[in-house]
């Protein structure tokens, strides 16, 4: 989905909040929020793609205003309610107030019907593809050309795996893009490497 979470290349954000030895956690509840979602994954209540997608499905205003661990907890609570493990009324009663959850999911999809194998050095193009469910294709590479650098082991296809759709595992390709191709005349020179699922790719035109 073209969601608020798809941050790569968005403009207008200010300086990095950088400190040496910056912490991962700033409050005790953050440690527990992180542990609770990991615990649910360990129990097999949901997988990482479902977890990520429930964060992406948060109302955009909530997403932007929430801290990292609030997003994590919102995803956990949403999935526990959607899967019938807990009820919303129960958790709101226990919390003593409203408990904002993510918005409903669109349908998932299986792998692309025609997938090509690529080799290092091949020039590829990211398909001009718009899909309302979970996807791991950041918007900034859509329609862009790059060069395959290597191939990873096969992974569950996120567009299916986040939605309970049967699909084959497929490799991701490490594709190298030039920042100047991604944002012509409006970026600093760099090489940007993205792990791109096979279903998202086609051979670049000659």
């Amino acid at each position, binding site marked *: 989905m073209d969601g608020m979470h798809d*941050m*790569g290349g968005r403009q207008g*954000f200010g*300086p*990095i*909040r950088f*400190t040496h*030895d*910056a*912490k*991962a*956690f700033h409050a005790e509840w953050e*440690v*527990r*929020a*992180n*542990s*609770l979602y*990991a*615990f649910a994954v*360990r129990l097999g209540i949901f*997988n*990482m793609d479902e977890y*990520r997608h429930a964060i992406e499905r948060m109302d955009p205003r909530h997403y*932007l205003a929430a*801290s*990292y*661990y*609030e997003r994590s907890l919102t995803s*956990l*609570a949403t999935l*526990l309610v959607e899967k019938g*493990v*807990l009820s919303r009324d129960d*958790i*709101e009663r*226990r*919390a*003593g*107030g*409203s408990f904002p959850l993510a918005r409903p999911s669109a349908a998932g999809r299986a792998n692309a019907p025609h997938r090509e194998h690529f080799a290092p050095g091949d020039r590829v193009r990211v398909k001009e593809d718009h899909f309302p469910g979970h996807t*791991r294709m*950041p918007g900034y590479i859509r329609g862009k050309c790059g060069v395959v650098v*290597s191939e*990873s082991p096969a*992974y569950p296809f996120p567009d299916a795996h986040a939605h309970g759709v049967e699909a084959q595992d497929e490799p991701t390709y*490490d594709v190298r893009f030039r*920042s100047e191709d991604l*944002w012509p005349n*409006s*970026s*600093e*020179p*760099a*090489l*940007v*490497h*993205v*792990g791109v*699922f096979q279903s998202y790719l086609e051979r670049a035109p000659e």
Partner: protein
Amino acid sequence: MPDQDRVVKSTASMEQRVDAIQAALDERGLEASKGVEELAHLAQDVWTPKNGARVVARAWVDPEFRKRLLANGRAAVEELGFTMPKHHRHLVVLENTAKVQNVICCTLCSCTAFTIIGLPPDWYKDLEYRSRVVRESRTVLKEMGLDLTPDVEIRVWDTTADTRYMVLPEQPPETVGWSEERLADIVTRDSMIGVARL
């Protein structure tokens, strides 16, 4: 009218929301509190940057290990007793040189090889780093204190799949000959993310 009821309720605090989930799971007999205790220990005391620092130090002193690490990161870190979650099927180790600076990010969420380089710091998860580092990497690194000369090529790695990355920083020349333990002490998490040099 449940909907009206929902409108007038104020939003519960984060602590109240975490407590609610934990208590509700415990009451379902899922022993969440026990699981939380164990996972909190792992996240804070076991999955720390010290693991990655040991990997880097070994790679600096042992050229054969370095080769194996660059060829198959997951298998190489296992030699030192470090494991990765099942869904992280691949660890790609990126070698920095005098002319190449690798830097990792996750624009879509905040993925990292957390069992090896530690859980990501706050700024890594912030919207500023995620939005800007792919598009204006040199400026972002400069803001973070790493002012690279124009001849250094920057390679940004966006963690969009479950393949994980870590940066192998360049060994400072004055440390050649040091013991592995002493070398591990100088390796920082930020240098393994690639926003700092040693």
